[in-house]
């Protein structure tokens, strides 16, 4: 049987690619990104590489796809009221300048000839810190719930570092209505600047760092953190797509094919947040970060295949977990709606 129709020619990269694989990658990353509020470059790049993309093209193509995919998720999150645009715009100032600063540090390290090793180990340390923070926060919240202390209107929270940071009253003070935060404008600017420096330094989009920073340091509820971070990823992704295209490292055909899968995936991931509790999202996020960290360690010790297998299995398992949340929640909602209608008719 002739299977050539399953392969699409990429004119810039000069390779034939199995296009259903591209749709599947787009779909999976759409689901995960919409649920966690991040781009997911750490998942897409190895996937594209496995499909046959040269690494130089995998990164640029990945960034452009992330920008388009985040746009789809942001539209959906926006309807739920999960995007704090004012906070997003204020944070963009810090993110952009931070990313440039981080990139300069990398160039300086390149001149010293230490870049690869340093970047990977710094990445591992930060991923470990994020995972530790997320899990210990969960256990603290569980303890608090058992003791019945500090129950706010949104439920129990573990770490509340943002409350201390909100006490810093450096003008101008700003009210971020969607997040329900009143703080100094310098807080989101400095937090996004620091996460931006790290993102630029590590060569990643930054969603992995910004999402927990929005929760723990700025005080945004988990759902708002997810939506607002996607808005940031969208803007920085478009900027990244432009600069990578100028460097000639993008395959536009692949971006379009991946976006068709992402369009469906992003809806599922985003709607799933409606049926998940904040800590459910945080825990799944912590697990994803942990697997990402292990895969980087494996890569560092040249276990490339094991690293790719780990990443792909993580994507598969988390994707199925999110889909289960979405379909279970949606089915329950539709059943409840039907029961209410029947009750009304009976009355």
């Amino acid at each position, binding site marked *: 049987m002739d299977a050539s129709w399953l392969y699409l020619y990429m004119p810039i990269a000069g390779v034939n690619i199995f296009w259903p694989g591209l749709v599947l990658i787009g779909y999976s990353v759409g689901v995960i990104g919409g649920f966690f509020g991040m781009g997911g470059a750490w998942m897409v790049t190895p996937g594209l590489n496995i499909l046959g993309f040269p690494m130089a093209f995998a990164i640029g193509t990945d960034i452009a796809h992330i920008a388009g995919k985040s746009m789809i998720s942001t539209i*959906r999150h926006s309807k739920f009221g999960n995007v704090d645009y004012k906070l997003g715009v204020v944070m963009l100032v810090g993110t952009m300048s931070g990313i440039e600063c981080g990139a300069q540090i990398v160039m300086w390290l390149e001149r010293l000839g230490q870049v690869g090793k340093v970047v990977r180990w710094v990445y591992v340390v930060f991923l470990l810190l994020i995972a530790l923070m997320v899990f210990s926060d969960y256990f603290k919240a569980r303890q608090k719930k058992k003791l019945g202390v500090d129950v706010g209107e949104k439920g129990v929270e573990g770490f509340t570092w943002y409350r201390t940071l909100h006490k810093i009253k450096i003008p101008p003070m700003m009210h971020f209505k969607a997040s329900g935060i009143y703080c100094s404008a310098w807080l989101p600017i400095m937090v996004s600047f620091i996460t931006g420096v790290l993102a630029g330094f590590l060569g990643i989009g930054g969603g992995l760092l910004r999402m927990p920073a929005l929760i723990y340091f700025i005080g945004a509820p988990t759902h708002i953190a997810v939506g607002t971070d996607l808005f940031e990823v969208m803007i920085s992704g478009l900027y990244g797509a432009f600069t990578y295209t100028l460097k000639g490292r993008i395959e536009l055909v692949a971006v379009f094919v991946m976006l068709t899968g992402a369009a469906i995936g992003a809806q599922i991931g985003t709607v799933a947040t409606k049926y998940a509790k904040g800590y459910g999202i945080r825990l799944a996020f912590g697990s994803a970060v942990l697997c990402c960290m292990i895969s980087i360690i494996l890569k560092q010790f040249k276990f490339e295949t094991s690293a790719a297998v780990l990443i792909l299995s993580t994507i598969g398992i988390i994707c199925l977990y999110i889909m289960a949340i979405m379909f279970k929640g949606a089915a329950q909602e539709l059943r409840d709606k039907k029961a209410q209608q029947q009750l009304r008719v009976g009355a």
Partner: protein
Amino acid sequence: MKKPLSHLVTLAMTGALLLPFDALAAGGKATNIVVVADTRRVTGFLKYLSNLYNTDVWMFAVWAVVLTAALGCTLGFLMDFVMERTGLDLKSRKIIEH
């Protein structure tokens, strides 16, 4: 006394934020890779884009960003339209952390 102090802190933080731009001015330029798109096996709009990639990379970059954004928006609104028809309430949600 409190007010001048807060102005001073604001000024210092603005200065700190502008630092990266100084660093940027000091940095060297990254080298680009040269790749030529193969226009023999594509037709129509893809051929136009591939030609553009070879001849005017700036224009190609603008097209890349515009097309990605346009496709993202179109697919977003299209899927939104489809999801509205599932009967789910997609305009409200409760925020529960634990």
